[in-house]
């Protein structure tokens, strides 16, 4: 019994925008996990409701930027009765340390979770040196 962990609601964080936006929609910061394996950096982001075609991932000047756009047309004509969470687009950026092989970035979207695999560039990979 003690090992069962009950899930808690994590409040959505709104993005502190650097620039002003021209659209009235809210933008939230998706929850993220970052871990490193020997092949590269993995970034996992939770973006519920974001469809495969509305995800934009880019690396520019060592900054990884992920944007997920939500389709609000599904909410048209719906009368809210009771609400517990807000909906909006998702956006988050990370400054990368270490060189990434940009041409080999892999992305997968499953159940509202975006998994990014950023492979380290060849020269940045740790190399084992044989002692003769």
């Amino acid at each position, binding site marked *: 019994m003690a090992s069962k962990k009950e*899930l808690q609601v994590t409040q959505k964080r709104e993005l502190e925008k650097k620039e002003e936006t021209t659209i009235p929609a809210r933008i939230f910061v998706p929850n993220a996990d970052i871990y490193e394996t*020997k092949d590269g950096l993995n970034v996992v982001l939770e973006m519920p409701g974001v469809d495969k075609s509305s995800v934009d991932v880019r690396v520019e000047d060592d900054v990884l930027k992920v944007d997920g756009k939500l389709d609000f047309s599904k909410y048209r004509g719906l009368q809210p*009765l009771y609400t517990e969470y807000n909906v909006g687009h998702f956006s988050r950026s990370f400054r990368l340390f270490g060189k990434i092989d940009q041409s080999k970035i892999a992305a997968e979207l499953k159940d509202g979770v975006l998994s990014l695999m950023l492979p380290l560039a060849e020269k940045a990979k740790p190399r084992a040196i044989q002692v003769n």
Partner: protein
Amino acid sequence: MIMGFADPFDTLLDLQRSLEASLASDWLQDLTTSRGPFPPINVFQQGDDILAIIELPGVSKSDLQIEAKENTIRIFGKKNVDYPEEASLHRRERVSGEFDRTLSVPVQIEPDGIKAEYRDGILALFLPRAESDKPRTIKIS
């Protein structure tokens, strides 16, 4: 309930967590507060029918169960967060665990007409209002 003594801190923290959860949940008061147990639910009206939209990112379809009874809907399951072996964790914000939530709607619903759609981490529950519950216009003769 017998608790193991493997990690007393874990047990203590779990106790604290569940105490906090009971304070944070809205079962004590009948108010439409924006705080409730996991998962967060938005309820909409679509014509005569009810549409509940629930955010469940990272929950796979096979780990999600839905039960309907009279005018209540129970949503329960678990959320797994896995990491490969030999991975060094830099940031951890996603949480795993179990959830169990029952939603009651103020109208009678047609249990056979309930439709559930799960896509991109969003569960949409379409709850049709029972014919017997719909208001009827009465003609004056």
